[in-house]
């Protein structure tokens, strides 16, 4: 009993040390070179500033299979997140990835719940369905818990950041630049910091197996 109390106390102490007295915000826009906003871009903190302790998990996330598509198609998560892949269709799916970041396989399942998959390494994980080639999605595993998806206009809003200098990077599916090459250091203080990214994107190209509509 005493041990439990002691543990709780220590937790509270750590929280007090980790969280500064106030939290900052970063807003901005991800734009193409021609000025158009880029939606579905992941803006994330590449590494935590010295002295800033990250909140720890366990974090959970979900990627549904609905109407023979993955939803969402781009899912940013923090390292250490467990992702569930619930099948909401009336047919079997076989979710897998042989990406170097995470290789896993959820053999054919329909009604029962598949075991959640733990993503313990940062990087890009392409998700596919073995029996439906057009079904693809991307799970972007971010090294820190600070990340956000840009909206339709390419705008993003990162909240609750402790003060510090953050290396901020962006990733998009069709970006020609690697995320580490987009890093911008942003100072987070009491005010909201503004930052914008300009990305060079490749024109979208059809992939074999992306021909949806053939049915099953």
């Amino acid at each position, binding site marked *: 009993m005493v041990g439990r109390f002691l543990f709780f106390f220590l937790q509270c102490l750590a929280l007090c040390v980790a969280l500064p007295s106030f939290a900052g915000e970063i807003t901005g826009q991800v734009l193409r070179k021609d000025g158009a906003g880029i939606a579905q871009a992941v803006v994330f903190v590449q590494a935590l500033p010295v002295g800033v302790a990250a909140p720890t998990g366990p974090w959970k996330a979900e990627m549904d299979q609905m109407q023979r598509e993955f939803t969402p198609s781009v899912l940013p998560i923090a390292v250490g997140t467990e992702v569930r892949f619930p099948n909401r269709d009336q047919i079997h799916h*076989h979710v897998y990835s*042989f990406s*170097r970041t995470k290789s896993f396989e959820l053999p054919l399942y329909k009604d029962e719940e598949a075991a959640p998959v733990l993503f313990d390494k940062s990087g*890009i994980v*392409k998700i*596919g369905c073995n029996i439906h*080639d057009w079904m693809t999605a991307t799970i972007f595993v971010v090294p820190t818990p600070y990340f956000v998806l840009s909206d339709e206009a390419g705008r993003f809003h990162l909240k609750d950041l402790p003060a510090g200098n953050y290396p901020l990077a962006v990733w998009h599916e069709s970006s020609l630049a690697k995320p580490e090459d987009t890093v911008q250091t942003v100072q987070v203080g009491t005010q909201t910091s503004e930052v914008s990214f300009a990305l060079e994107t490749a024109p979208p*190209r059809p*992939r*074999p197996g992306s021909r949806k509509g053939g049915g099953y």
Partner: protein
Amino acid sequence: MRGWWARSRLRTKIFLVFSGLILAVLLLTLGATQLVVSRQTQATLRHELWTTGQVFQGLVQERTSRLLTNSTLLAGDFALKRVLATYDATTLMSAALSYQQRIGVDLLWITDEHGAVLADARGHQRPGASLAQVSPIKEALTLGDAASVIAEVEAGLFQLVAVPVHGPDVIGFLILGQAIDDVFAEQLEHDTGSHVAFLTATRVFASSFSGAERAKFVALEQTASALLAEHALQEPFLFRLGDERFLSLVSVIEAHLSSPLYVVLLGSYDEAFAPFYMLRRRILLIGAGGLVMALLVGVGLAGGITAPVQTLVAGMREVLKGNLGYRSGIDRDDEIGFLANAFNEMVGGLEEREKIRDLMNKVVSPEIAHEMLQHGVTLGGEVREVTVLFADIRGFTSFSEGMPPQDLLRLLNAYLGRMSRIIERENGVIDKYIGDEVMAVFGTPLAQPDHAVRAVAAAVEMLRELAGFNAEQQAVSPLVPRLRIGIGIATGPVVAGNVGSPERLNYTVLGDTVNLASRLQSLTKDYGTALLMSGLTYEQVAQRFPCRFLGQVVVRGRQEETALYTVQRDDVGGTE
């Protein structure tokens, strides 16, 4: 000078015309056949080659697409993705071998997503070696999609396909290859019927030739560039390989090589022409047979037509030579037979006529006989100037009494024969024999301007001949009396013609001149000379013979005087 043709025999002409015609027809047939068939075959061959080119393109495309389908299917195989994701070289190596056998390709490589070799079913590629710059992996890497290319791999020509393996992002590449080798070329040959060769300017990669032909074709490597440079692409040309000719077509195939890759399609020209050659041989054979037969028939026919003609010609030669007894032995019912019969009848007629002429010559002099045959025998006559000669043996009656009649006749005939020949030699005509007397006429029926000269010359010759004759008779028998003659010659107009009844005629001369000549003959005894001629005769012969005037006399039965002359010669002048 007549040409050779005109001098040739009828048989040769018929034969030559016959065989020439057949030969012309044969050559014309052969020429026309050759022209038509050759054109047709060439066109067919060109079309076949063109079709082969199309089929060939289709086959190559079909192979590429099959390769692409196979590799795409294999790349989508989940087991492959799973084993690829292990990135375990040994496992991948064995898997590659298994996949290669399953699909039946000649080459199968597996690389990682950057083009580094993970496995090579044939074990040639070193694991880890980068193929990122090698086609078609380079193109597949750039595109993120399947790419295919024809390229050289380890000294061989391959059709290569590279497809990305999605897991679902690109986790590697699968590269499948089919060799473009002799086996493939032979299969194409089997499918299209034309030889196929894949070559660059410096090297023959594959060909459907085998054995000696292959050796010959590969030996062409040095000349390959020349061969390719010489002929425009897609333009058929005739290519000779050893003894065989090929209609060939060169096209370029897109490939990743240092120099352009060509495919040469070779349709055997000789093979295509084989039926035509056989046809030509047969036509020649049939033609030669026909020619020989036609020649034989021609020879027979020409012989059949000309042989009787030859017989007739030979007969005609005989007739020309004078053999009128010749008869052709041709017995036919056609025109030739008619001709032969006509010939025989004609020669028969000639023979009969000749017999008559011969007989006539014995009865009448040849000239009269000729005149009669020429102008027919009609009563009446014409006035002509002639010279008439009478020759008579003196004292014939007296010595004929002492001789046996046979001996007398023999002597007379011998004498008359000798005298007659002399007269005839001078173209005189024996008008008649009156016992031992000869009457001859010069200048009719054939007109002779020198009839007087001829008469006198005959007379002089008769007298000389008589001397010889007497010497001969004496030599045989000294008892035979010497003959002495008197000759009277007169020149002047006479009536010459046929005298007698229409059934029986005599060609003779009548008139005062005849009487004068007879009288002169009688007068020779009185003047002691063997020859007496009238003044008119003298006038015509004075230039040719030395004459002597003997006097003027009124001949019995004539009003005016007649001058008498004789030839001044020893044997004439004597008065024996």
